[in-house]
């Protein structure tokens, strides 16, 4: 039952995220647009590029979707309303998101096209930048909760949300999350004006529809993870728990989709340099600070 409910919530979440993305990209707010676009996309021809690596080409979008769904599985909508409450939920989330990289490289390699291939390898570089920064802030979150279970992590924030408790970790996690979902300004693998679609460039029709759906699932999963780790999940007054989670998730997703569009696309080497030289130092400092605070102040 809870699986069905979570998937339903996920579908609604994806739709809303698509509405926000259309708003951010085209400057027009339309509740109907994503449905129309999806239908139009399904009616289009699916073109197979010349001499593709067929296995990689076909697997890329599906693997991306699977990675997104797996990471949603450990995000609690409300107490008990979770697909699987793993004891190592936070770690599982990382493991699932690791397949995003594999899917993008497959999609980049598969079509045998220059733009796609450069896009795929660019994402490999991007992965090196964000990989540590997605794990290290979660470490600090788990330290406070004394558990890797996502449900426990939410409960640990009853007195104070982690966004206040460990703001450095929050900022680092969001920047890394933008990298995982290749959202602007870190959309290097697709890079609109500079790579002509990149890894998406050769997908058409239903394959492209699957790809875009998978991307939305990943955005929702990462927003849900941000809410779980930093915004106290379902915790909140007046409304039922699931409503709080849903509201917060959509708000975080909307912020992630829109804010980055006011920045120019980052230079890859700059993203790598900042992530490693500054980001990892800050992440270590964050772990240390959270450790000290957790020892001294019982909240």
């Amino acid at each position, binding site marked *: 039952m809870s699986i069905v409910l979570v998937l339903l919530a996920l579908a609604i979440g994806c739709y809303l995220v698509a509405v926000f993305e259309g708003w951010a990209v085209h400057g027009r707010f339309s509740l109907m647009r994503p449905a129309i676009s999806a239908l139009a996309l399904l009616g289009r021809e*699916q073109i197979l590029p010349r001499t593709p690596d067929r296995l990689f080409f076909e697997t890329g979008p599906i693997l991306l979707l699977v990675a997104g769904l797996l990471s949603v599985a450990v995000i609690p909508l409300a107490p008990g309303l979770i697909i699987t409450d793993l004891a190592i939920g936070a770690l599982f989330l990382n493991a699932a998101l690791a397949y995003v990289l594999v899917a993008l490289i497959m999609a980049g390699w598969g079509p045998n096209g220059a*733009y796609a291939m450069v896009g795929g390898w660019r994402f490999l570089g991007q992965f090196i930048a964000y990989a540590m920064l997605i794990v290290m802030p979660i470490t600090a979150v788990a330290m406070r909760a004394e558990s890797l279970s996502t449900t426990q992590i939410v409960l640990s924030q009853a007195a104070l949300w982690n966004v206040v408790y460990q703001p450095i970790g929050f900022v680092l996690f969001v920047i890394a999350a933008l990298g995982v979902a290749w959202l602007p300004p870190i959309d290097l693998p697709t890079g609109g004006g*500079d790579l002509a*679609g990149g890894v998406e460039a050769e997908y058409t029709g239903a394959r492209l529809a699957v790809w875009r759906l998978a991307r939305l699932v990943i955005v929702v999963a990462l927003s849900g993870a941000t809410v779980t780790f930093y915004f106290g999940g379902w915790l909140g007054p007046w409304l039922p728990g699931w409503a709080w989670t849903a509201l917060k998730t959509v708000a975080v997703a909307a912020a992630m989709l829109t804010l980055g569009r006011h920045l120019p696309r980052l230079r890859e080497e700059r993203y790598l340099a900042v992530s490693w030289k500054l980001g990892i130092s800050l992440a270590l400092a964050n772990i240390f600070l959270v450790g000290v605070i957790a020892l001294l102040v019982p909240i």
Partner: protein
Amino acid sequence: MTVLSGAREGAITGLRGLIARAMARDLCAFVVPGADVARARGLDVGAAGLHRTDTPRHANVLLVAGPVTPALVEAASVVWAQMPRPRAILALEAGDIAPLPAPDAAGVLAQDGLVAGLADLRRAFVGGAFAEQVADFEAPALTTQIEYTCPMHPEVISDEPGKCPKCGMVLVEREVSGAAQKGHEGHEGHEGHEGHEGHEGHEGHEGHEGHEGHEGHEGHEGHEGHEGHEGHEGHEKSPERPAQAENTGHSAHAVHAPEQPATYTCPMHPEVTSDRPGSCPKCGMDLVPRGQAGEHGDGGHSGHGGHGSHAGHGSHAGHGGHGDHGGHGGHEEHGGHGSAPDIPGIEPHFMSMVGLTEGKPVSPDGLVMEWIDAPFGPFFPGLPGGLGLTLTLDGDSVVRAAVSSHASGPPAPDLAAKDLPDRLAALSPLAPGALRELACRALESVSGIAPGPDAATARAAAVERERVASHLNWLADLARQTGLSWLERRAAALHQGLRAAGTDEIARRAPAIRALAGRVRRTPLLRDKLAGIGRIGTSGAEGIVGPVARATGLATDARADDPAYAELGFATLTQTSGDAWARLSQRLAEIGQSLDLIARAGAIALPEAPAPLPRDGHGMASLETPRGKATLHLILKDGSAGTVHLTTPFAALAALVEPMTRQMELAEALTAIASLDLDPWGVDA
């Protein structure tokens, strides 16, 4: 009900009808020849409710915005072939667009025409997106044919099978595209099958698996060693592709190491040598004997010419793997090649990878990867429309850049002198006003009639208005390339409002334009993104003109010598750092300056050809266009323009691309190229 020219095959069912209606409301256009040209011709694609895509694969409308040259139509036919069905063409005063099918909707070249054309297109989609029978489309540029070539001598090409006249080997077949054969630019990606993307298009229907037959050559198989030439199979056409042997790469380094008495060496560290087996002190790998190296070493590599047995060449393949022949020092022994014992009928270096890779460009970083020629034009989003650009990529760094323009050809010889301004203005959609002014000035210099001071300042104001519009248009393209969608929309909207505005209108819009310039300067991280990219020193700026030269600190501006501008109080602005950020700052500053000049001029007037015109004479004029100084030489004969010679800033700026982008990361190279604001139109007129 009419059927779309690019309808998708399928029976018309209720579901398909629904899908067709959804498509009609979700039109995505690929704009030919480019968004900048469309904007300059008065079209605001986004405002018309049309979503502009970056790749033809995601589009269902091909928007041809105004007249295009035959070369561009041919490139557009490749784009059309890549678009998934159902697809349609909207042509706005595009003229003859064959070999593209007849447009599904047409209109006048204006925003009204675009909106009306889109309405027609929506109706056409609802009724004709699917059809029982559909016509095939084959882009002529994509048709391929078989030719035969020698695996060792790529310059030997024959229409029929046979033997190589140089070495006697059996020729192997390969496929070439029609476009490649004609040497048409923009399609370089086609030749050979690494081809890839962009233009590799094709009606690659789901069912067309006939192509799978080519799979054999796409990996690296076929490169290991040279025994067995099947490996070559002609599929990797590239005479200038040094990539062929990378797989055998490092393991054969030893073959090439300098001759020393040592007999064991590390496969990864050729400088490590030992006279007994063991492991490498640097990486721990087992040392390998380099006996083979010794054998070949003495005779120099000249001996290769005489090898009868291909078996021995496994080791030679390693030479290719070396990549940079200079990098390891010690290749002096190659000098021995000169004294190769010539075998009658067989060239020296026959079968030698040294011979094959000698003189070929190699990566300066020493890594050997397969190089790819990828087209980034003529319709690349974020670069000027019509700009032909092919980048040779080594991984994601640029090793070579080739820029070309799509010239519109010289004016017809019997062109009446009074029609010259119109003809020149039609040459470049990006700077029509400046070219018209230039033509009028040249005609005035022939006839000796000078405009009055008021007329001169009003005409200068018209040029300045075009400068502001041109810089805003460029800004929209830069925004597209860097992913700043708000800036793209805003700059495009301001550009539309300004391009034909009068002085009052401009005065009203000026605060918004200045505010935009300020907001661009304050955009977080933009400076970080552009600083240091494509830097040109003052010494490297010789010969270049316009904002690019002024951004290096060089005060070259044709306006400084113009009395009309002296009256308006013009002073040349410059920047110092000479990089992409300086070019952006320079253009933003010029936008403000031009708005001031227009305000001081107080009136805007378009130039008219002077009358009466002398029947014969010689004239010359120059003008600071938005991109730099352009010069026009004109000789009139019998009342018509006998000789017209136009020099635009394009050639000087395009020459910067190659040295500027060398070894740059792809995204940075594209930023650098965009920052030059190349106008590929109206060259060589």
